[in-house]
């Protein structure tokens, strides 16, 4: 599969159903296209707080470019409302020797979908980690496609999801490692927890490797809150409701604790725990 058809999926692609192409056009109204560019050799931290309030079908487009030898820690925090249906498309380019760490934190919304289409060139590193939660009869979705376009690229996707109250989460993590990209390392990891009888979770990892000298791992699980841990916590004096809440928070903390900035850690904890 060529880069074009990998990143701009068409109807022949089996994951077409989740392709952004259906959101750009008649059904969804495209409202803006912004570009975020990190200059060569610079280092930056950025937080994007996206809280859609409009009830239209909206698609937003953001281009993120990490120029050569730059480093960016980007945090995207997005809460949807009961009627908001919005799709966020991020076209990400990691130029040689650049590092992009993208934290994506998504909560609720009728449709709250974030699609990352990433190209990573030699010696670059892209890490996408985050949380998707939906507890309100909607769908929170994180879809990441990472294309290793050069040698010695490191990419990681670490996403935890949780759903309840007829909410749904979707994680799709795709990696394509092209020919002649020796020394690549990639990991796709997702743990989706369904907190009650009505939640749903979909977890789809896909690795396409066309090069011999690579290290690739994936680990995706979907399940309910561990019954043994719940019983244990109850036996120590914690109520069932609080034990569930505590285990759900621990599930979130496994990701939040990866954030190197404590003020942002606190903000994200508050975001999910309000």
């Amino acid at each position, binding site marked *: 599969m060529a880069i074009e058809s990998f990143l701009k999926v068409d109807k022949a692609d089996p994951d077409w159903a989740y392709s952004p192409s259906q959101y750009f056009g008649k059904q969804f109204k495209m409202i803006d296209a912004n570009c975020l560019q990190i200059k060569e050799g610079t280092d930056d931290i950025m937080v994007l707080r996206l809280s859609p309030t409009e009830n239209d079908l909206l698609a937003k487009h953001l281009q993120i470019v990490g120029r050569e030898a730059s480093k960016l820690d980007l945090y995207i925090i997005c809460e949807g409302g009961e009627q908001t249906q919005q799709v966020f498309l991020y076209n990400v380019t990691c130029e040689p020797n650049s590092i992009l760490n993208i934290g994506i934190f998504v909560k609720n919304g009728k449709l709250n979908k974030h699609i990352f289409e990433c190209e990573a060139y030699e010696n670059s590193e892209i890490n996408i980690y985050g949380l998707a939660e939906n507890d309100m009869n909607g769908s929170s979705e994180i879809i990441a496609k990472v294309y290793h376009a050069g040698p010695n690229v490191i990419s990681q996707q670490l996403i935890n999801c949780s759903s309840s109250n007829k909410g749904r989460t979707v994680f799709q993590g795709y990696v394509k490692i092209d020919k002649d990209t020796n020394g690549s390392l990639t990991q796709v990891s997702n743990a989706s927890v369904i907190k009650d009888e009505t939640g749903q979770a979909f977890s789809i990892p896909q690795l396409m490797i066309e090069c011999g000298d690579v290290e690739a791992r994936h680990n995706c699980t979907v399940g309910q809150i*561990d019954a*043994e*841990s719940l*019983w*244990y*916590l*109850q*036996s*120590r*004096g*914690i*109520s*069932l409701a*609080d*034990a569930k809440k*505590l*285990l759900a928070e*621990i*599930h979130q*903390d*496994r990701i939040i*604790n990866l954030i190197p900035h404590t003020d942002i850690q606190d903000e994200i904890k508050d975001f999910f725990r309000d």
Partner: protein
Amino acid sequence: MLKITNLHVNVEDSEILSGIDLEIKEGEIHAVMGPNGAGKSSLANVIAGNPDYTITNGKMNFKRKILNSLTPDVRSRMGIFMTFQDPPEIDGISNLQLSRDILKAREDKRNSSDIISDYKKLIQKFDLGSEWMKRDFNYGASGGEKKKNEVLQMNLLDPTLLILDEIDSGLDVDAVKTISSDIKTFLSKKGKAALIITHQPTILETIKPTHVHIIVDGKIVKSGDKRIIKGIIENGYRKFS
């Protein structure tokens, strides 16, 4: 303290306890022994309130309150504490933090520095290593460390009725000595009582039971004092089957 009358219990559709009668008074230490699958651990789990077990008949009273319909957390806060045979590993929260959360749920009056100070002393007592506080709860811990963590929590929570479900299994001789000597000291305090589930009589050499019960096929088939243990060591459980 605890009075069990004609207790019948099912797991799914199978009866696993068939008419248990047992009374434990303050200051008493009851040992329950029996072959594999006899129902010993089930009895411990039912008293602690494991939701996998269904009481089909009978009654349990603890401190004059009927336990049957009380949730496990309420039973725990009333003073019942069961050590687990195989405690879970919970990664993402440290041993110290989970203990803090447990104490908070129990409305423990100790402040944060008192908790840390008490916790450090217990880590030292059970030789769990200085990193134990920061390590994820039981995560990657050996069987022995997990059992020590159970006894550490017992000390931290200070329960009234202690249920030890095979606390000695998987422990080396030295660890059994450390743990059993600590439990013995704990039980010597006023107002405590214990139910000890065990296969092996070794732990009972230190924690001397006041009463011994043999359970087979979900029923107590013999009760008496510690002289029963001698018979078990010599003849096993065959004569009770």
